[in-house]
């Protein structure tokens, strides 16, 4: 059984159809990339899966349960975490606190107002662990709003994976980074998504071909192809979507 299934999902805003009849099956442990031209609806698709938007029609299932139209926190609690294209952290809280908050629910703390966080050894150790993994241990006490851009993106990543979610969705994780920063970020992504399922929206083809087991191509809200990187590369429709008319002597 697939970990995540999209079944004829459609989304319209007013009379404008953004996502048109998208069906997709993601297997557990798979590394799946979603690519496509700007405005294709990739972020919208993420929003639909993670609960930010409701679907206009169709169904989304996660681990056999229906999750479409559930509020984001319900979906997150079931083991689905995401990062954002535009950095979405808690700027006034320290880096350490950012990660620790991301861990709270999965560690079972719920809305407790009687447990002092300072005393929760296991929780704090786990948070330090995550910080170690994303390479921000030395910045732990800094307000996260003061981090450099690439470090904020790393924190963004850390918040997404901290809770130990099985399905991690990353929206353009290396956007705006220099080549060396992106390299580090990719290595980080590989490390922390090991054994987990990953769906990634990305524009950088090198990264996509490096990481992905399968690629889906989204154009004008429709998936025109889902296949291995090699096959996508040589897929005529994909070439057409990116380059316009395929040259007849190709």
């Amino acid at each position, binding site marked *: 059984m697939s970990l995540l299934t999209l079944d004829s999902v459609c989304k319209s805003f007013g009379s404008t159809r953004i996502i048109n009849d998208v069906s997709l099956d993601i297997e557990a442990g798979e590394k799946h990339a979603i690519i496509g031209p700007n405005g294709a609806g990739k972020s919208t698709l993420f929003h639909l899966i*993670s*609960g*930010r938007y409701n679907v206009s029609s169709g169904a989304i299932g996660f681990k056999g349960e229906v999750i479409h139209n559930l*509020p*984001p*926190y319900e979906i*997150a*609690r079931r083991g689905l*975490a*995401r990062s*954002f294209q535009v950095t*979405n*952290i*808690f*700027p*006034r*809280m320290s880096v350490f*606190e950012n990660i*620790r*908050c*991301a861990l*709270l*629910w*999965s560690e079972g*703390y*719920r*809305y*407790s*107002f*009687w*447990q*002092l*966080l*300072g*005393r929760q050894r296991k929780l704090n150790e786990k948070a330090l662990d995550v910080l170690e993994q994303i390479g921000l241990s030395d910045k732990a006490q800094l307000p996260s709003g003061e981090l450099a851009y690439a470090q904020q993106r790393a924190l963004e990543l850390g*918040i997404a994976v901290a*809770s130990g979610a099985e399905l991690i969705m990353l929206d353009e994780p290396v956007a705006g980074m220099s080549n060396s920063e992106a390299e580090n970020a990719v290595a980080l992504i590989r490390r922390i998504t090991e054994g987990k399922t990953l769906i990634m929206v990305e524009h950088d083809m090198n990264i996509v071909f490096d990481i992905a087991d399968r690629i889906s191509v989204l154009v004008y809200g429709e998936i025109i192809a889902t296949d291995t990187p090699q096959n996508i590369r040589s897929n005529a429709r994909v070439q057409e979507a990116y380059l316009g008319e395929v040259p007849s002597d190709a």
Partner: protein
Amino acid sequence: MKKQLPVWLGFALALVFLPSIFDSVLGISILNQMTIWIIFALSYNMLLGQGGMLSFGHAVYFGLGGFMSVHALNLIADEVLVFSITLIPLVGGAVGLVAAIFIGSFSTRKSGTVFAMISLGIGELIVASSLIFADFFGGEAGVTGDRTYGPPFFGIEFLQDAEVYYLGAFWLFIATLFMYLFTQTPAGRMANAVRDNPERAEFIGYSTRRVRFISFCAAGLFAGIAGGLFAINYEFITEENLNALTSGRVLLMAYIGGLGFFIGPIVGAVILTLMNSLLSNYSEMWMLYLGIMFLLTVIFLPRGFAGFIMMHQIPWQNRRLGTLILPYSVTTVPALVFLAAFVGLVELSHKGDDILPFFGLSLGAESMLSWGILLALAGIGALGVKLSRPRLAAAWAFANTPTADDRGDVR
């Protein structure tokens, strides 16, 4: 937490010994007021500073707690209820909590401006209801009670203000401790997270509405406790203690003190209570000064007085705090001159035929010389401040530059 034990110890000691220092009738009265307003202001900051929820109707929980507490005092005096009045703040807290649960159930669905407007509307509704339901709220005359008829507490009957102070100080310590501990819990931390980024908080598994609701209820609880203390202190409460003005006052306290710091509201409550009590004795125009001071704080000290103090953390770390003393003095002197002259001008305009004593001079509104002196002083003061600003700015920049030995750590 262990690091902070000395701070709490110091706080407790201060509370115990303050009345020995300020032992006049006025002093004790001011201290009593402070215990009430500090708890109230801290409870407000649970909403605004910690939770990012701007409320214009927080006095509702304070007032309802207070009203119920005065009624409880009366029931105790009539021996319908029998328990020590030292537990009255719990009555207030319970009422505040229940009211917050009820009102929070629908008002915390929204945030930002909508939430603020709902709180305003609810506040006005309750004030208006208080005038209608004269039985509970005593109409325009309010409700009075007597704290001395309850069963004695280890022999104390709370006839003296000083005895009331120690009761208030006890509740102040307990309330502050618990409000602080709340910030260190998952609920408290998530409140911060929801404040910073409500959307992201949802994506890490938390319902922002639930988180806000919990903060809202906790804030109502502690506001009710403050209301209970108020009842004990004044033995009298009216609809004024529920209204928008009281809500505004606690907003002012939290803001002036500094929303972003736990001690901010404490600082704000202390400052405003002092101004309220002391200034009103010296001048009729004290509200005008309060208004001006408030506006200046909002413009120039957006992080409040606590923020102003914390601003000096980096110079202190750089061990350059001392370099600021001289520039501050150089700017402060003309500023004080200007302030004195300004106050003099304001007071003189309202003296009519009376004489205004001004640092040894006797100024009269009729005399052009008096006006001239004040205006000249104001001008000199303003000029002095203006001229000293570049130097202050330079000194500030210097104080914020890391020193040579730390340069290795500079990122």
